[in-house]
């Protein structure tokens, strides 16, 4: 039935729910339940991760189409199937999700002390929703997962968050939901037009030019909020600041990729005309995002907020890359999404480390940590450098490929879009200087402990990934090269087709 020989994607998607059942069946006093919940969640996510590695091994890199496809009739009277499958664009995001979830579980081992069981359940449900969203090959199934992600995330922020958690959670929820409603409309319209909800069919459907514009903006409303693009980004800093560390990690690592993934899955391949027409609009918003949010990041006094704003800037580079619709731009955008998934997740974990010890995210509260926490200083330095795109680290490859892709479009797009190189270095080094360098002045910092064994276990895989992706990115780009080429060719062919017709029609 597929390369794995069994319904691998469904298993990876739904297995976390088995963990949920196990956790729910545990009885006993609170400590027992908490310990059981932690271990069950960790083991479940680790097993899921190992299973998902089959994708890494068995994925056929030469094939630009969908693989590991599974289909089951779901609502036959409507023609809706439960269909799962991955192509080069989505397969690495499935792996990113399954890799980050156990790291998050491990990171909240001690940080989450109340309602541990419910927290772990939320996280496992979240994993199901994330993986399902990246693997879904039916528009309706996709929509369900896409929305489904919101609920556990909403709870994670709203229940385990900081003092203003309720405000942040509602803001997060309303922002993202408001856009989604429009996307649902668009999906329904496409369904009505093409007569299918199968993404494979939709990718090659010809949607009339008249419809493309408003469909484009309907999708845009939903995805732009998720990315988030300027000026609908303000939910993100609030959500990050209030979310617990693990919540921030998964939010930055995976959830921010949903919007960009949506652009790549729906807007660019299905609506080539509108994409070509409105690319300058997207470029403008993205360039503003890069410069504006980088500057705002420079002014922050809260560590998490600073990194949250830096995420917006980095995602601005991603949207530039996607809408250049050339191989380097799109590959760069995909790579940037993956590297940002690793690096920003790691940076939020870095903040989490000191927050767990001192219970403050105020930058001015710190200083001189290098003396007491050399291992932490090393990890933080590495991820800071990766974040500002030092060659040899994960952050560089994507940013540079986008630069090349953008340069093919326009010099100014490349120049302005790359200003993040300078500004990114400015806010990261400024942050690093204030937190890590300097003299220790406060008494409680003098006794601060370096990373524990558990924390090293959390960081080690991310350190390896950040360097691996920087030194040998081909092992990642190889996955999506064929798919990106196919997508770009398809897009160009569609544009050529319409211009030829237009040429015939207009005398």
């Amino acid at each position, binding site marked *: 039935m597929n390369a794995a020989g069994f319904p691998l994607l469904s298993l990876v998607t739904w297995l976390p729910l088995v963990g949920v059942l196990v956790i729910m069946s545990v009885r006993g006093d609170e400590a027992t339940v908490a310990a059981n919940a932690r271990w069950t969640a960790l083991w479940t996510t680790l097993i899921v991760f190992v299973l998902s590695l089959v994708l890494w091994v068995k994925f056929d890199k030469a094939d630009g189409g969908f693989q590991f496809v599974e289909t089951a009739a779901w609502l036959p009277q409507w023609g809706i199937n439960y269909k799962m499958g991955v192509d080069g664009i989505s397969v690495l995001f499935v792996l990113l999700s399954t890799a980050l979830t156990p790291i998050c579980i491990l990171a909240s081992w001690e940080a989450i002390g109340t309602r541990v069981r419910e927290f772990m359940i939320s996280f496992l449900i979240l994993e199901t929703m994330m993986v399902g969203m990246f693997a879904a090959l039916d528009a309706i199934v996709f929509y369900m997962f896409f929305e489904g992600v919101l609920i556990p995330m909403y709870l994670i922020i*709203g229940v385990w968050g900081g003092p203003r958690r*309720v405000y942040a*959670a*509602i*803001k997060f*929820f*309303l922002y993202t*939901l408001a856009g989604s*409603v429009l996307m*649902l*409309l668009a999906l*329904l*319209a496409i369904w*009505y037009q093409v007569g299918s909800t199968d993404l494979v069919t939709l990718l090659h459907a010809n949607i009339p030019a008249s419809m493309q514009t408003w469909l484009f903006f309907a999708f845009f409303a939903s995805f732009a909020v998720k990315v988030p693009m300027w*000026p609908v*980004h*303000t939910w993100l800093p609030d959500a990050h600041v209030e979310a617990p560390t693990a919540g921030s990690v998964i939010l930055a690592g995976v959830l921010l990729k949903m919007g960009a993934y949506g652009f790549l899955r729906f807007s660019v391949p299905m609506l080539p005309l509108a994409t070509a027409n409105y690319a300058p609009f997207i470029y403008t918003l993205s360039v503003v995002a890069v410069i*504006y949010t980088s*500057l*705002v990041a*420079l*002014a922050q006094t809260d560590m998490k907020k600073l990194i949250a704003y830096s995420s917006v800037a980095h995602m601005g580079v991603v949207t530039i890359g996607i809408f250049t619709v*050339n*191989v*380097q731009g799109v*590959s*760069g955008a995909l790579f940037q999404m993956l590297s940002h998934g690793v690096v920003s997740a790691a940076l939020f974990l870095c903040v989490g480390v000191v927050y767990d010890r001192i219970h403050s995210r105020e930058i001015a509260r710190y200083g001189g940590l*290098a*003396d007491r926490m*050399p291992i932490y200083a090393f990890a933080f330095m590495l991820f800071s*450098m990766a974040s500002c795109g*030092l*060659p*040899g680290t994960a952050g*560089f490859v994507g940013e*540079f*490929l986008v*630069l*090349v892709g953008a*340069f093919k479009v326009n*010099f100014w797009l*490349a*120049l302005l879009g*790359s200003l993040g*190189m*300078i500004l990114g*270095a*400015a806010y990261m*080094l*400024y942050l690093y*200087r204030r937190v*890590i*360098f*300097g003299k220790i002045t406060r008494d409680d910092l003098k006794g601060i402990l370096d990373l524990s064994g558990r924390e090293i276990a959390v960081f080690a895989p991310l350190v390896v990934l950040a360097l691996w992706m920087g*030194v*040998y*990115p*081909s092992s990642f*780009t190889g996955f999506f*090269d064929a798919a990106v080429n196919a997508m770009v060719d398809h897009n160009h062919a569609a544009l050529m087709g319409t211009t030829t017709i237009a040429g015939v029609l207009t005398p």
Partner: protein
Amino acid sequence: MLYAVAVFAPLLGSAIAGLFGKAIGDRAAQAVTITCMVLASVCGVISFVTLVYGHGHPGAVHIMTWVDSGDFHVEWALRYDTLSAVMVAMVTCVATLIHIYSVGYMSHDNTIWRFFSYLSLFSFAMLMLVTANNLLQLFFGWEGVGLASYLLIGYWYDRPSACAAAIKAFLVNRVGDLGFALGIALVFVTFGSIEFGPIFGAVGKHQTDVYMLFGTSWRAYEVIGILLFIGAMGKSAQLGLHVWLPDAMEGPTPVSALIHAATMVTAGVFLMARFSPVLEFAPYALGFVTVVGASTALFAATIGCVQNDIKRVIAYSTCSQLGYMFVAAGVGAYQASVFHLLTHAFFKALLFLGAGSVIHAMSDEQDIRKMGGLAKKIPLTATLMWIGSLALAGVPPFAGYYSKDAILEAAWAAESGVGAYGFWCLLIAAFLTAFYSWRLLILTFHGKTRADHHTFEHAHESPPVMTVPLILLAVGAVTTGWFFHEQLIGEEWGHFWGAAIVNGPANHILHAMEDVPHWVSFAPTVAGAIGIAVAYALYMGMPAVPGMLASAFRPIYLFLLNKWYFDELYNAVIVRPLLCLARVLWQTGDATIIDGVPNGLAAMTTGGSGRVARMQTGSIAVYAFTMVIGVVALVTVFLLFR
């Protein structure tokens, strides 16, 4: 294979010292890094000798694929030609000596393993830069030395000034790097590859390519040349992007010697030589290079004349000498620029390390106004500093004489307006160079001491672990000039360089250099001699006069002392407005305007309730309400479309 060892041994040393330094201790970390560096320099020198004097063949050592995306393909590989090999040999040798010197200089430090790890990391990045076989790997080394210099300048991270200098160095470099990155992108768009082989092979084909910019079309080669040179300006501290170099003196002195003399700052000059096959066909870009180089040489020399910090004087001297090298590259005499790079590496490392020895002797005093008369206390250091200064001032037969003379001759022989501008700027700079060098020597070593009694009595010669590297560098500063000048820039230069440096068919500058009028050849030496004489007269003969001159021409003096007010200008025009804008964007843009709209809506929905408790129950209502709207919309649309 040896060549790969030369490049990767420092990385190994750095990794061991950095990761396990705390566990294995300072001694072991020093031993490991120095062993690796010695190994690297042996391999580096052997590779160089076999290629140039033996039977080696230029080529490349392939390691693995790096980036692969569509037709964008980049390899990790080590280029093996004369230019790379000579740089590898020079970098490994100088870096090794600096490692050894640091054993003595840093002996009182707390985290010696960290220092040695950084030093080796820096050497590795520099080696990757010079052995790059494509522009992207060159960029890797380029930014790698940026990172290492950031770490080294900020090595004493508990000093605010060191942290500020480190960040400044990184950011100013990044400005240049952005230009470089754009240049790489344009090279890719023009040539369809960024590997050196394919680019240089296709130079003929893209001569007439144009690139649209500012609404006009420009020849692509000119734009590429300018963009790459912007990168070089950042790294090599040329006028405008030079502001980081003097501040970088906050790092420990061996760092200044390694980074700001011998290696990192010369990367820009190296880039020009490396890219000579393309730059040869970008005459306007080269003109720009010449003008900027010449201006920098003169500008930095004027500042060097009034600085009082021993390291800063030398730092501005570096800045000025880099200007010389760019003039040479700009008039097409890349060979001369690399020659000066080579000799400069030895005598400037010697001067910095000598200054380190002085600072060491003076209990960390760096102000030359508080020195004087030290020649009696530290005669060896004084002698070595004299040798370094003689080489810097271009006195025959020291190394600087050969290379500096060659550059001035080349500038004259270019027979162009920019060439003449370069020549006169450099000639004046040659006078100033000799002047500030002897000002420094006299104020430091001669006359009556102005140091306080205790410090002066305490002054002592450095241990052999520091002086032996100095002596070896001094040997280099004496000999490299006459040993190399015939091979590098003589009639037979093609034999030495092979295909590593290309002169276009119309470029006969190396030949024309031989035929300049006699006075041109003598001029720099004479200018140097006058500079020495003036410095001697002012600071030995009439020590009161410099002070009187300073007060008589106070505005000029202050202008020079404050480095032409570049820092103040940048602060006022760029840094402060940006920080201010950042605050406005955040507090007004984000918090008031963008958030104002949805927060207003939210306030309406929840009935104006500000209370957390009520909002929590309200949230489910909001959720349900939105879902209802969604369902209604869904049904409506469905019915409408049916």
